[in-house]
C-alpha cells in the first residue's frame, strides 16, 4: 500500500518538476514555476518518508540526524539566499551548485564504505558509485574554484596558463580511472575509492582554474549540468527513480543552457574548456594596438546632447553593476522620460556576468521590463537613435566583431551602437575589456568618452540635467 502511495507521490513530483522547468523558461510563469518545483521537492521528500514509515520505520537516531542536517543546511541556505547582493549572483549559484555535488559525493562515499547497509553491492552499484563520486567531486571543487575566481579571491597561477596544465589534468584523469578500476576489481579495499576521490577533486580544480573570468558563467552552467548527472548517478546508487529522472532533466537542461550561452558569446564549448583565457590565447591575433584618436567630453556636453534628443538607448554592462549605479541610472532615465524623451535599454545576451544577469540588476532598480530590449530587436533601431549611452560595456559594442575578420571577436553578435547619431561611452579609463581587445568604437567620430566611475558620472549628469530645467514639474 505504501509503495503505491509513494509511486503516486513520485509521479506527481516528477510531473511538477517538469512543469517547473518548463515554466521557468517564460517570464510570466517563471516565479510560479519555481515555487511549483519547490513544492515538488517537498512532495518527493514526503513520499520517501511515508514509504519508509510504512515499511521499515525510521529510528529515533535517524530522525535526530535528519533534523540536525535539515536545520543546519536549511537555515544556512535561507540566510545565504536572503543576504547575497544581486551582483554576486553567479558566485552564489556556483556555491549552491558545489554543495549539491558534495551531497552526491558523500552519499556515494557512504554507499562505497558500507555497501551492505545500502544494498549497493555488485558491478552496477560500483559503477554508479564511481560516476557519482567522480562527477560529484569535480562539481564540488570546480564550483568552489569558480566562485573564488569570480569573487576575486583566487587568480590563475602562471603555469596553469601554459600547456603543462593539460599534462597535469590528463594525469589526474588517468589516476581517477585507475582508482575506479581498482574499486571494480577489489570491492573490499578502499584504496581505489580514496584515490578516485582525491584525483577527481583535484581534476575539478585543474580544469576550472585556467578558465578566464569572462567564460566563468559557461563553466558554472556546465557544472550545474554535472551536478544533475551526479544526482542521477546517486539515484542509481540508492535505487531511486525519481532521483534519476530529476537528475537527468537537470543534466540535459543544463547542457542546453550551456550551449545557448556559448552561442551568445560566439565561443565553442571546447574552446571555453580547453582554450584557457580568451586574452591569453588571442593576444597576438590582431585587433590590439594603441588608441590614437579619442574624443573625450564633459558631463555638461553630454547633458546638452541628451536634452536635445528624441530617442536615447542605454547600453548597460557589468561595470554599471559593479559601480552599483543602476539606481542612479534609473533616476537619469526618469528625468529624460519626464520631458518626453523615448528611452530604451539594449541588453546584449551576455551583458553582466551571466546571461540575464543584467536584466535582474535592472529589475532590481525598478526599470520597467518593457524597456529592456534584446539585441536582435534593437539593432535595426540604432540608425533612428539620437544618443546611445554606453555604461561599463565594452566588447559587446565593438564594431570589430562585424568588420574585422582578423579580430578575435569576429563573428560575435554585437550591438550596432555606432549607427546612432551620437555615442557616449562612460568608462573608468582606457583599459581594455574582458577580452583585452581594442575597441574601434572609441575612435569613431561620433563617439565621445566620458571618463569616470559610472555612478559618479551619472550623478553629475543628473545634476546637470536638472540644472537645464529637466525633471521639474
Amino acid at each position, binding site marked *: 500500500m505504501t509503495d503505491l502511495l509513494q509511486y503516486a507521490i513520485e509521479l506527481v513530483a516528477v510531473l511538477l518538476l517538469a512543469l517547473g522547468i518548463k515554466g521557468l523558461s517564460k517570464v510570466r510563469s517563471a516565479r510560479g514555476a519555481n515555487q511549483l518545483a519547490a513544492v515538488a521537492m517537498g512532495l518527493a521528500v514526503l513520499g520517501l518518508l511515508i514509504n519508509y514509515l510504512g515499511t521499515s520505520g525510521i529510528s529515533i537516531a535517524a530522525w535526530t540526524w535528519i533534523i540536525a542536517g535539515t536545520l543546519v543546511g536549511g537555515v544556512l541556505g535561507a540566510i545565504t539566499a536572503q543576504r547575497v547582493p544581486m551582483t554576486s549572483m553567479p558566485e552564489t549559484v556556483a556555491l549552491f551548485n558545489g554543495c549539491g555535488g558534495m551531497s552526491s559525493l558523500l552519499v556515494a562515499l557512504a554507499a562505497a564504505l558500507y555497501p551492505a547497509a545500502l544494498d549497493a553491492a555488485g558491478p552496477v552499484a560500483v559503477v554508479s558509485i564511481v560516476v557519482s563520486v567522480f562527477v560529484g567531486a569535480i562539481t564540488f571543487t570546480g564550483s568552489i574554484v569558480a566562485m573564488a575566481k569570480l569573487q576575486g579571491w583566487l587568480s590563475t597561477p602562471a603555469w596553469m596558463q601554459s600547456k603543462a596544465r593539460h599534462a597535469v589534468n590528463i594525469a589526474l584523469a588517468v589516476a581517477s580511472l585507475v582508482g575506479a578500476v581498482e574499486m571494480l576489481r577489489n570491492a573490499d579495499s578502499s584504496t581505489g575509492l580514496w584515490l578516485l576521490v582525491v584525483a577527481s577533486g583535484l581534476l575539478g580544480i585543474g580544469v576550472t582554474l585556467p578558465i578566464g573570468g569572462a567564460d566563468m558563467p559557461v563553466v558554472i552552467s556546465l557544472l550545474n549540468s554535472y551536478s544533475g548527472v551526479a544526482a542521477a548517478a546517486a539515484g542509481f546508487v540508492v535505487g531511486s527513480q*525519481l532521483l534519476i529522472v530529476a537528475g537527468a532533466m537537470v543534466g540535459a537542461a543544463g547542457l542546453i543552457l550551456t550551449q545557448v550561452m556559448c552561442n551568445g558569446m560566439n565561443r565553442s564549448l571546447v574552446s571555453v574548456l580547453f582554450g584557457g583565457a580568451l586574452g591569453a590565447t588571442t593576444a597576438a591575433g590582431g585587433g590590439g594596438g594603441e588608441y590614437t584618436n579619442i574624443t573625450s567630453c564633459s558631463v555638461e556636453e553630454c547633458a546638452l546632447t541628451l536634452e536635445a534628443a528624441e530617442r536615447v538607448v542605454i547600453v548597460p554592462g557589468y561595470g554599471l553593476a559593479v559601480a552599483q549605479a543602476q539606481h542612479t541610472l534609473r533616476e537619469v532615465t526618469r528625468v529624460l522620460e519626464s520631458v518626453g524623451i523615448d528611452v530604451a535599454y539594449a541588453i546584449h545576451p551576455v551583458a553582466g556576468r551571466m546571461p540575464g544577469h543584467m536584466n535582474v540588476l535592472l529589475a532590481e532598480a525598478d526599470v520597467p521590463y518593457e524597456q529592456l530590449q534584446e539585441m536582435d530587436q534593437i539593432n535595426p533601431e540604432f540608425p533612428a537613435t539620437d544618443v546611445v549611452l554606453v555604461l561599463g560595456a565594452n566588447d559587446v559594442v565593438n564594431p570589430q566583431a562585424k568588420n574585422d575578420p582578423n579580430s578575435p571577436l569576429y563573428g560575435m553578435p554585437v550591438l550596432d551602437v555606432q549607427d546612432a547619431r551620437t555615442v557616449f561611452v562612460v568608462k573608468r579609463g582606457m583599459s581594455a575589456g574582458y577580452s583585452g581587445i581594442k575597441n574601434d568604437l572609441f575612435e569613431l567620430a561620433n563617439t565621445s568618452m566620458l571618463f569616470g566611475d559610472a555612478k559618479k558620472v551619472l550623478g553629475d549628469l543628473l545634476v546637470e540635467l536638472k540644472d537645464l530645467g529637466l525633471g521639474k514639474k
Partner: protein
Amino acid sequence: MFVEFLWVLLLGSLLGLELIGKVPPTLHTPLMSGANAISGITVLAALTAIIKAGENTVLLLLGSVSLGFALFNVIGGFLVTDRMLAMFSRKPARKETR
C-alpha cells in the same frame, strides 16, 4: 531493475532537452539557479542513507552532512531564484491590472 533505471535515465534526459527549447536571455540566470536548486534532489539519497544506517554512526554522520549540503542547495537555490523572479514580476503585474 537496472534496465528499467536506464530507461528512466534516457527518458528523463530527453525530457530535459525538450523542456528548454527557447529561453529568453532574460531568464538564463534564474533558470540556471532554479535548475540548480532541483539538482539538490540528492536530499532523497541522503535521507535514504540515514534511514538505512541503523546503528552505524559513521553512516549516519555521512548521511546527515550530505543532507545538510543538499538542503543548503535546495533551500538556498529556490529562495534566491524566487528573489530574482520577484523583481521581474513586480512591474508587469502592475501593468496587467490596468
